[in-house]
């Protein structure tokens, strides 16, 4: 099997994040991840794909140590960031180390204004006002819509606006590695492209590493370098993005392509039960 740290050009990149065979249990009874292993190369965009409930969010939360607050715990395996175990760190230590997560479902601070939301992103940085203002402007450049709404309480902004706030807020922490959970959810197509464009440019220009969980396989595979496909808590397939895109099963079930190109949603007349890799 291929390895995520294998760059397309064949050189081997450094692994920043390594997950070895982790198991996650919620409420000490619900076993959700059943041995997931991942490698995230430095400076790459790695995609985590899979259907609803596959365990993408759980994997990301296990990395950023947010499981604890949901009564979940990692019971087996290890998570290494730059070779160090990070399971015992607090989430804010992790942010200080440069790993930040953009949570699924926005999670804005409702009562804070849009701008204040962004500023909380800079909380861990000891940066001066000038730096922070510069970054604020960078975020506003990426998302002009936010600039217009900067003074309104985040709770009153639309779903898409909140998503922009969440991403902008993460950028404000000047991270090295960003864990993005479903960034495209609820965004207009133009904006999806735009956000992935931003991801790409951050990755290429600033060297940010991305691990993104996505349902929108199409876009994800277009921008990612490497992909893992998760199904019911197990990694069922992985490979370079381009390879995955050519894989017939992926094509059929994740990209919605049939032999004749894209099928119409109107014409899927029967519920075809797909074959599962792990039945």
């Amino acid at each position, binding site marked *: 099997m291929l390895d995520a740290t294998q760059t397309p050009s064949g050189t081997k990149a450094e692994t920043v994040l390594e997950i070895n065979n982790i198991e996650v249990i919620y409420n000490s009874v619900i076993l959700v991840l059943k041995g997931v292993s991942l490698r995230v190369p430095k400076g790459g965009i790695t995609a985590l794909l899979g259907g609803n409930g596959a365990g993408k969010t759980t994997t990301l939360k296990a990395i950023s140590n947010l499981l604890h607050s949901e009564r979940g715990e990692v019971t087996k395996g290890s998570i290494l960031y730059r070779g160090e175990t990070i399971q015992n760190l607090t989430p804010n230590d992790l942010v200080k180390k440069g790993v930040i997560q953009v949570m699924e479902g926005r999670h804005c601070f409702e009562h804070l204004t849009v701008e204040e939301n962004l500023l909380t992103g800079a909380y861990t940085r000891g940066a001066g006002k000038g730096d922070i203002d510069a970054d604020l402007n960078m975020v506003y450049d990426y998302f002009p819509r936010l600039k217009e709404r900067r003074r309104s309480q985040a709770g009153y902004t639309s779903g898409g606006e909140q998503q922009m706030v969440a991403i902008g807020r993460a950028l404000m922490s000047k991270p090295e590695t960003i864990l993005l959970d479903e960034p495209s959810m609820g965004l207009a197509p133009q904006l999806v492209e735009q956000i992935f464009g931003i991801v790409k440019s951050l990755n290429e220009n600033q060297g940010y590493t991305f691990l993104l969980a996505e349902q929108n396989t199409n876009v994800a595979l277009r921008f990612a370098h490497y992909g893992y496909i998760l199904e019911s808590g197990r990694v069922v397939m992985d490979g370079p993005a381009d390879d995955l895109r050519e894989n017939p099963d992926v094509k059929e*079930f994740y990209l919605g392509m049939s032999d004749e190109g894209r099928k119409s949603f109107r014409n899927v007349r029967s519920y075809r039960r797909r074959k599962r890799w792990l039945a």
Partner: protein
Amino acid sequence: MLDASDEGYITADGRKIGGVLMEMKNISLRFGGVKAITDITFDIREGEIRAIIGPNGAGKSSMLNVISGFYVPQEGEVWYKGEKRPPMKPFQVAQLGIARTFQNIALFEGMSVLDNVMTGRLNYMKTGLLAQAIWKGKAEKEETENREVVEKIIDFLEIQTIRKTPVSRLPYGLKKRVELARALAAEPSLLLLDEPMAGMNVEEKEDMSRFILDVNDEFGTTIALIEHDMGVVMDLSDRVVVMDYGKKIGDGTPDEVRKNQAVIDAYLGVAHD
């Protein structure tokens, strides 16, 4: 624009669309300085699948909220089944047969899937408090009858296995499906769906599309739908309203909308095929 007479029209795939079910006339809605909706007029016809699209923050969800009576527009009128709708509380609107799902899933987290779906049938359950306290007899009978309806919907949406699971434990996609089930349980004449497919992968979207089409087909339910996936919108809907910054910038069949330059500029970015 379709030349839709008052009696309706026939769609490309041959379905018969009826007369106007709901009409929004010159709706304007402001929040303090924010103009969420500005003077929008459109109609929804019986049996139709009507999409509302537009960039983020365009006012789509707000429009659904106006329809379901949660937001009261400063200006404009809502006509439903040929009558002007007087000012109403949301629950009264629901009793008119309008059901919906929400963009940021609004399930009742403390209840099981079954109970959530059963709440959709509350408007059909009329036994008094006293009879419920006694339970045996009237209340039990009513419960069973409605349970049967709900079980059909559960089967239909293929969520049998999670019937007894508390919804808080469900993954996002399944929650959306449960929400749809809850809305369907109300057997609405108009179903409003706010981004029913956000956070789903293609396969799941296909399933969801199937459900939407079947609802529309089998029960003749009229559907208004907000969605950002253009594939879905273009494939499913009969007519599309396009909003931008609270204004209507386009209205017509998917093909017409797709070619509308204003829509391309504001929303689609590139022309979708």
